[in-house]
């Protein structure tokens, strides 16, 4: 019997084990998306409450991870809506089209340590749908099919969002290189 099955059977101890295994990831993923400690905690808490209430609806325990992140995704949206004057995704959009990267012809950008730091800042400025796929793919390390399940969108949409997000980040980095270390990079 797997851990998830034990939780489905009502084993509270198993739930706590599951909780300990995922709480760190849940809070940090929520933080990366919301950029708010308080919201991240609220989202994580709501996520696990929903896990408890709905885990019996999970038919295939192997699919727990994408199922879990779909709950986190929805909990984030619900929790964010409750906040007055605070958008769940509060960061400014940069107003660029997805294809407008200015990065054509670049094979691979090798970043130095400072630029990785800058990248960290730039990720927080991505629009919601882009930031979310970046976090789920490169922090939570979900596969694209898992992301599609978690976000309840077609796999093609995940792919295009990922591509768009990466292109957008690349464009911002290129802009930073061309325009010196100001602009986007100095905003934090």
């Amino acid at each position, binding site marked *: *019997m*797997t*851990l998830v099955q*034990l*939780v*489905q*059977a*009502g*084993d*509270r*101890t*198993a*739930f*706590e*084990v599951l*909780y*300990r*295994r995922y*709480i*760190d990831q849940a*809070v*940090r*993923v929520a*933080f*990366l998306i919301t950029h708010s*400690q308080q919201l*991240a*905690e609220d989202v*994580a*808490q709501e996520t*696990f*409450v929903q896990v*408890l*209430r709905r*885990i*019996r609806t999970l038919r295939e325990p*192997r699919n727990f991870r994408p199922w879990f992140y779909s709950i986190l995704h929805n909990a984030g949206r619900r929790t964010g809506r409750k906040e007055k004057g605070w958008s769940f995704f509060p960061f400014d959009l940069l107003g660029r089209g997805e294809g407008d990267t200015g*990065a054509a012809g*670049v*094979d*691979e*950008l*090798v*970043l130095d340590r400072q*630029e*990785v*730091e800058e*990248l*960290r800042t730039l*990720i*927080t400025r991505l629009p919601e749908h882009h930031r979310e796929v*970046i*976090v789920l793919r*490169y*922090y939570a390390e979900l596969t694209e099919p898992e992301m599609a399940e978690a976000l309840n969108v077609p796999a093609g949409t995940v792919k295009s969002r990922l591509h768009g997000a*990466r292109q957008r*980040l*690349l464009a911002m*980095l290129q802009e930073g290189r061309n325009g010196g270390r100001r602009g986007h990079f100095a905003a934090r």
Partner: protein
Amino acid sequence: MLRDDDLKAALAAEATRAQVPADEILERIRRSGARVQTVGSTRRLWYAAAAVLTVAVVAGFLLMSGPLGRQEPVPAAPASPAAADVKPEVQPAGPLQFYESKSWAFRLSFPTPFVGPVIDERGSMVFRSDAFSISVDHRRRQPQVMAEDLLGDLVAATVKESQRFRVAELGMRTANGRKAGLLHVQYISAAAWFDRASYAVTAGNHEYVVACTSEPGSQTPWEQVAPVCAQVLDTLEVGTDQGFISRAQAAEAVRAGLPGDWDVTLATLEEQFPVEGAGLQAVWRIELAAKADGQLTYHVILDAKSGKVYSTENLVTGEKH
């Protein structure tokens, strides 16, 4: 094109800014009253609703039929059949719960060096290695042991199952010539306890000993213990997808102590018995694919403490080593 590693590094760095008050959040979840809606609890909810409805109908009937304005005490509503049916919820028995009345123990032994103990901010003793983080909350009457990462679910789930565990041994020992950390948890029942460990497994560069065996003199038959051990093995196997060890990996550790050149395909705890002068021994059914002879079945007797092979018996030829 951005490199994946740069994205991961940036996100990992950003994520460290978040605090994870795990205990506080868990407490809030508990206070929220959220729980798994088991069949039992759903049924109980219906019973409770039916009982309330019955009481309300009876009370309403008495109120309506009695003289208005009279201050006579309203007779207590008779117990409804529905209310009488309300029984304590029986949690579906998971393997660990099922054997709760039995006595058993297991031990995790990790020969990788660890640091500690140190007292963390919650007052728990914490031992850390590159594979384990084990904390022992000594403030409780029965120490609460939590191990994270590899095998963590097993330790945590078991120890916290009944709160009837105790840390029997916690310290250093020498295993295979190396210093090793040893966490020995015993599960105590009214009858007896099981002791010792005899399952050697490997995961990457790490080696662990996990097993359940019976204390000599224990009245609890092995038949009751073996399934728990099987649960241990199953847990390990289940964890394979999540980076834990598999039964095949465990069997590989057993193979190292066998004579000849064998491929172990399956290792299953079968039975154990006391051996005079040698403490308790565990018998494993090991399926071996010999390089030349094909598939054979061996009984392998392991030293219950060290996990080393004590002897083997070829069930086909009767040959013993």
